[in-house]
């Protein structure tokens, strides 16, 4: 896989996601400065940084929830939220499960299919199958109020994959879950990703979670936010939060950039380590 992030020419990247944001402001305060990166279909990219580093904002721009910014986000060369242009099939998980409390688990999942049900004759729903797959075969007709926090996230996970996403946006989806529940959900996520191969943008402030899940980590920070470091994760698949390799990678990374997680990067260290192609850990 190729990650030459210093390349801004969209036409050289006909496939995948290209993000080139010059500036995003809330009122008069710039929150995102220059962000420019490209990711290929099938990549698992984590966005890591302190709170307020514009990670969630960036995600909502990609999701098309906010079109008020200066820049361009394209998918396979076409603007992602262009009207009339069929967007990439897009799944999204938020910090909260965000299920409709008046819809059963199954109806919650089916809700996001309604566009395709209307436009694709002979469309067969995979909602029930996906609920089974995330371990909720007994809970199809249960209202979210009667589901535990972990089960609600499972419904949200099934919902995200029922659109057969090519682009999956995750905004700290497993935050505030206990360790075993979170780990089971992460395993489910990786298993589903393995099969559907979406491009994942995964926002987290937990470096270990990023190291355990992602192929590539973009560290964000500074005000207005920008990408401080584009880091490639070279650990074998099958890793999890407690893997020794993950802990070791975390140690090496933090030793080299002690203030990385607070959104400050030592310029000297950056120049030393950040090779022209942005892959600093070879």
């Amino acid at each position: 896989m190729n990650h030459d992030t210093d390349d801004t020419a969209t036409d050289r990247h006909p496939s995948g996601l290209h993000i080139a944001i010059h500036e995003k402001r809330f009122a008069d305060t710039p929150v995102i400065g220059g962000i420019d990166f490209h990711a290929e279909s099938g990549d698992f990219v984590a966005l890591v940084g302190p709170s307020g580093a514009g990670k969630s904002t960036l995600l909502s721009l990609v999701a098309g929830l906010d079109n008020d910014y200066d820049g361009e986000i394209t998918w396979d060369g076409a603007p992602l939220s262009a009207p009339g242009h069929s967007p990439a099939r897009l799944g999204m998980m938020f910090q909260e499960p965000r299920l409709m409390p008046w819809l059963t688990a199954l109806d919650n999942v089916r809700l996001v299919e309604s566009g395709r049900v209307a436009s694709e004759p002979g469309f067969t729903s995979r909602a029930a199958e996906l609920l089974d797959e995330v371990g909720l075969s007994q809970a199809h007709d249960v209202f979210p109020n009667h589901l535990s926090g972990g089960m609600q996230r499972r419904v949200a996970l099934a919902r995200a994959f029922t659109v057969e996403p090519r682009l999956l946006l995750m905004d700290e989806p497993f935050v505030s879950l206990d360790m075993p529940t979170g780990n089971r959900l992460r395993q489910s996520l990786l298993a589903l990703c393995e099969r559907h191969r979406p491009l994942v943008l995964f926002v987290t402030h937990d470096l270990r979670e990023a190291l355990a899940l992602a192929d590539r980590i973009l560290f964000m920070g500074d005000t207005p936010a920008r990408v401080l470091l584009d880091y490639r994760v070279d650990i074998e698949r099958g890793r999890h939060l407690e893997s020794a390799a993950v802990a070791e990678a975390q140690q090496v990374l933090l030793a080299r950039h002690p203030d990385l997680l607070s959104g400050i990067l030592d310029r000297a260290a950056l120049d030393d380590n950040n090779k022209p192609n942005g892959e600093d850990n070879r």
Partner: protein
Amino acid sequence: MKSRWLIRAASMVGLVVLWQIVAWIADSDVLPTPWAVCLSLIAHTLSGDLPYHLSITLARVAVSFFLAMAIGTAIGIIMGRYRQLDLVFDGALVLGLNIPALVTIILCYLWFGLNDVAAIVAVAVNKIPVVVVMVREGARAVDPKLLAVAQAYRVPRMVTLRQVFLPQLYPYLMGAARSGLSLIWKIVLVVELLGRSNGVGFQLHLFYQFFDITSILAYTLAFAGVVLLIESLVMRPLEERLSRWRT
């Protein structure tokens, strides 16, 4: 469930007993006993005039109710969602809320003539501002986080309205429907009294001129029966269905 019905029935019986006792003590033409009213009710029903006038009144109530709910809900959602339009219409809304029902009724009859269109418009105009205020409150409280889900997944607009937006308004719509129905009952009778030659309001006016208190109470009783029926057969089951997920 069963004991709830028992309590409701017992309180009704208690009211009738109280009425009987007062009528007994007063022993006067101006307060007939429940039994006399009951007989009058049966007589009016058998003669066919009560079913006729009652059904006409019900039709007027139904039409103006649905008209007021539809228009009031639409305006309420728009005012709740768009700040600018809210400012534009707020003055008119306050005015609409406070114009006496009698004024709108008289004006409608003068402008549109003594017909059913004028009657229904008058009732609806009285009701719409109340619906707008309640629905606007609901539309303001709609959770933007849930709307963001629909937007991110490109859920079609109509589906979003039906399955994401409106369910959040249901409690407000139920409240508006309840208070609306009770208001409309009352206004429809006044409208009929002032400018129609049929309906329960017209009949009550007639009995008033004949000093026929027993018939007035008989019609009132029939009316109350219909109200209770609608409450228990339509409103309450609907509310239970819509709030099923809360349990």
